[in-house]
Each structure stands twice: as structure tokens, then as C-alpha cells.
């Protein structure tokens, strides 16, 4: 009998703590598969954020550090400067990366820090119970935007891939989604590409993944997947925003 489903080596046996239908789990799997495919499990060091993925240090079967809220790129910088031949990645939510950690991510990219950032954009603060994030869409109801996010009060959601692609130090920046199997395959390729970019010794790489939060969006898992396609992708267009190997997109 052929093996059709096998847990990646770079994932531990721990049971994921994510809610049912949350796509953090798929993203973990894709990251672990990329590490396995590239044969770098023994030299990868990951940095977990503050957010629902805080327990990522239990899930990735590599050496891990847990960082303060938003500071994962600075922690990864410290690691990479000590171990330049290792593969160093951060795994961050949108509150972590685009709000409190804006300075750290911009400057890590600006320095061309040779790290890979896995950026999980679910347009909300998951862990703290569904507050507004800088990525929350206009009109989206959250526990701190109960009347829907208003542009005149909060401005428009921040598009991080577009922003980071502007930095000269970024070498690979892509936005992907995991709401259906076709997009999951694209996401897998992008993550692999980002790690390859790091291994080649080029600069900063990031993959932004549009992700679901059924619990705090107040939707079923399948409604959530549909909402990614219908509401998120139009504002957050998918694509490769920077690929220095090819020249800017």
C-alpha cells in the first residue's frame, strides 16, 4: 500500500492547539514540508511569535525560540548573526508583525537580514479574542471595531507584502493563500522558494499567507475559506511582489 499521507519529519507528534478549521495548521505543515524537502531540519532554528502560534516551539521539530510580541525578526537577527550558516525563520501573525512589530520587520528587511518570515495574515487578533488588527478589512466587525472598521478612524488595512517588497534588502516576497488545494500547492512552492532564497545567501524573504480565524470571524470553517476568496484576496492580491533572482515584479 502506498503511503499517501505522512507527517513531515519537521513536525513533532504534539497535537496542534489551533481551533477546528483554522488554517494555521496547514501552514505549519507546509513550513515543515519545506524544511524536510530541503533537508535542513538539523540546521533550522525557528522563532515563535506571541499570538495563536506562540506554541509553535512545541510543533516544529527543530531548535526553537519564543520571542516577545512583535520582536521575532530582532530575535532572528541575533540568531542569524551568531549562526550565519543556519536556516532561521520567524512565524508571525498580523498583529505581531504589522502592528507592534512593524519596526522590527521593516528594519530586518531593510538590513537584508538573511532570514525567512512566515507571515500569517488572518485580518484579526486571534489569541486575544478577536480584536481589530492593522490588517482588518474596512467594515469588518471585531471586538474592538464593533461597528465595523472605519477608515476615518483607523485608516485602511496595511498591505505588508507591498510594503516590504519596496525594501532594497528584501529578495523574495510573495502573498499566497491556503483556502483551497490549488492555492495550498502555490503556497508550498512559495515557502520553499523563500527558504531557498535564504540558503542561497541572498537577503530577506517573506511569504504572507492569507489565513482563517473561524472562531473570531464568527463563521464556520467552510464559510471562512470562502470569505478569504471573496473578501480578503480582492484587497490583498496574491502574487510574487519581489523576486530579486528575477528582478522586481
Amino acid at each position, binding site marked *: 500500500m502506498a503511503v499517501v499521507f505522512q507527517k513531515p519529519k519537521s513536525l513533532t507528534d504534539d497535537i496542534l492547539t489551533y481551533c477546528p478549521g483554522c488554517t494555521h495548521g496547514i501552514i505549519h505543515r507546509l513550513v515543515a514540508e519545506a524544511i524536510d524537502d530541503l533537508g535542513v531540519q538539523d540546521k533550522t532554528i525557528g522563532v515563535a511569535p506571541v499570538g495563536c502560534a506562540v506554541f509553535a*516551539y512545541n510543533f516544529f521539530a527543530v531548535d526553537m525560540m*519564543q520571542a516577545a510580541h512583535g520582536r521575532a525578526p530582532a530575535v532572528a537577527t541575533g540568531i542569524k548573526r551568531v549562526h550565519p550558516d*543556519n536556516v532561521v525563520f520567524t512565524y508571525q501573525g498580523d498583529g505581531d508583525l504589522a502592528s507592534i512589530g512593524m*519596526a522590527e520587520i*521593516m528594519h530586518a528587511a531593510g538590513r537584508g537580514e538573511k532570514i525567512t518570515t512566515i507571515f500569517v495574515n488572518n485580518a484579526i487578533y486571534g489569541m486575544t479574542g478577536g480584536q481589530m488588527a492593522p490588517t482588518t478589512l474596512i467594515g469588518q466587525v471585531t471586538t474592538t471595531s464593533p461597528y465595523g472598521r472605519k477608515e476615518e478612524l483607523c485608516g485602511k488595512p496595511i498591505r505588508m507584502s507591498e510594503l516590504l517588497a519596496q525594501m532594497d534588502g528584501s529578495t523574495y516576497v510573495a502573498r499566497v493563500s491556503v483556502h483551497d488545494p490549488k492555492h495550498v500547492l502555490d503556497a508550498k512552492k512559495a515557502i520553499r522558494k523563500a527558504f531557498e532564497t535564504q540558503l542561497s545567501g541572498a537577503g530577506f524573504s517573506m511569504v504572507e499567507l492569507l489565513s482563517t480565524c473561524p472562531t473570531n470571524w464568527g463563521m464556520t470553517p467552510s464559510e471562512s475559506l470562502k470569505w478569504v476568496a471573496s473578501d480578503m484576496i480582492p484587497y490583498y492580491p496574491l502574487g510574487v511582489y519581489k523576486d530579486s533572482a528575477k528582478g522586481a515584479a
Partner: protein
Amino acid sequence: MAKLLMKGNEAIAEAAIRAGCRYFFGYPITPQNHIPEYMSKRMPQVGGTFLQAESEVSAINMVYGASGAGARVMTSSSGPGISLKQEGISYLVGAQLPCVIVNIMRGGPGLGSIQPSQGDYYQATRGGGHGDYRIPVFAPSSVGEAVTLTQKAFDIADKYRSPVIVLGDGMIGQMMEPVDLPDSTEINSVDKPWAAVGWDGARPRAIINSLYIDPSVLEQHNIMLQEKFAQIESAEIDYGAELVDDADLVIVAYGTVARIARSAIRMARAEGIKAGMIRPVTLWPFPSDPIAKAAETTKAFLTVEMSAGQMIDDVRLAVAGRKPVLFYGRTGGMVPAVRDVLHQIRIAAGAVDPRNPIEEAI
């Protein structure tokens, strides 16, 4: 070992390099800029890394990453920058990561002044960030001592897997004195099996972390940390005692102020006032025992600080009400003059009326 004439800040930086520190992350702030400037010049010469971070917040988190990756690493700052580092320091303690943090204190609160101060005593000795913790605090009172204490700070940090603070004031940082610089120690001489370096499968996975979501597990973690703090308290206290045995008045002062007090004590002795000094070198753990012992023989204590009175709390705790504890302090970046301290000694000794202006007293 050759004697060199060096500024305190630069001597601290060179001492760190010779202690095997090869990573420095910092952000400019007066009066400690000579440290990052010196590091930016020296680190490339010794194969190390100097990185100017985008903020003190980032700098301390880079320290966290480098320390977790097994390196000897340092950062330095002053008042406002040290405040920004506090979240990171709390994480470093929780995750048990060694590093050295230099605070060249300036006047506060707020942006304050850029002149010398000791106003960060509470912040340094009470942990400073959130949670129950203490970290060793070394307070040099000369450039030479800044060198030995900086080097010792790295060893203590590694020994206890804890951040260590070198707490200087602007005066220590800026002044020039001849120093003996020891030869370099062998780098990476300390075994760090817990560090994240890439997992080969042969050892348990390295997880550098301060999150223990189960309160009963966190309590166990905290009990372990408290035991470590108790160990540090029993083994690492350092202080100087000068002319204490026969003293009627014991001055307690640290850092620059201790030098000023030393001169004042000499003058007081010449006038027949039996003054002495206990000079804490470690501010935490605090030398409570020698102060308690002195309380049995002396008539009073005088705490002198460049603050509105912070260390005096620790002195009072040690004296435990057995003798009066007087205070003299200047704030905002003002440095007490020798004659001011002498005047306070005379008042304490009952030699002058406290209402007399200093001019008349001297």
C-alpha cells in the same frame, strides 16, 4: 598587562571584548555613546559583530536571539533606553539567558538630563520589568573597577544563566583613568548545551522560552528561579568597607558618590569626626550583613546618592530601625560636592547646626 589611560565607557567595551564578547547590539544615547562607537570599531577587528539596532527594544531582542544561540553578548544604554529594554530583560530572565547590560545612568524622569545620576537604582535592583525577578547589579566606582566588573559580569551571567547589569553613572562612563586590561579569555570556553544551534536529534530539542501557560508549572519555574536568586544572594555579594570598625557614622554610597564620600570622610577624620564607609559593589545582591553588623557599633548611618533616595530603602532594611539612617542626595544630573557631603557628616555628627548654610560651616 599594560596600564592604559582610558575613558570608562571605552574601558567597559574593551573589557567585554577581552571577556570573549563577540556580539554587541545597541542604539545611541548619551552618555554611553562611546560604548557602541568603540564596539563598531573593535568588533570587526576581532571577528565579532556590532549592529546598530533600530531601537533599544530591538537591540535587547537581538541580544535575546544571540544569547539563545549560545553567544557571549552585550548591550548598553542609558535611562530612557534601559526603560525600553525592560520587557526584553524580563523575557531574558524567564528564558534564563545570560547577557550583560550596561546602564550608564543619566538624570530622569522622562528625557531628564544627560548628566550623571543614580536614579535607576530601583529599576535595576527590583528587576525593572514585569514579573518576580532580580538580576545581579554591579556598580563600579572607578574605571579600573568597571573593567573587572564587566568581565566578572559575563562569568556570573553564564554561571547563573541570567542577565547581569553593570550600573555606572555618566561620570564613570566619561572619566579617564589608568587601567589594567587583562589578556583575552578563550572564546566560547563556556559549554551551553541548552543553546539553539540546530537540532541533530542526539539531544533534547532546544526550546528557548518563558511561557508556562499552566500556572502550576509556572509556579515551579518561579520557585526554581527564586532558588537561583537565593544562591546568588548567598554567594555573590561584594562590597568595600573603609574605616568602619571605630566609626560613629557610617556612610553608605556606591559608584561615583563613593569616591566623593571617601574624600569627605578623610576630611572629617582630620577634624576628629569618626566617619567610615560601606560601599556596595553589588547593589543586588545587597550587602545587608555588613551594614547590619555595623549597626551594632556605629551611632548612625548616612546614605548619599545621586537620587532622591532609593538605596536608602535597602540600608534601612539592613539597619532594621536600630540606628538612625540619614540621607543626602542630589538629583537631575547634579553631582554632590565633597564639601556638601562633609557638611552632612558634620550635621550627622552633631558638629554643626543643620540650619547653618554650608559656607559658614566650612
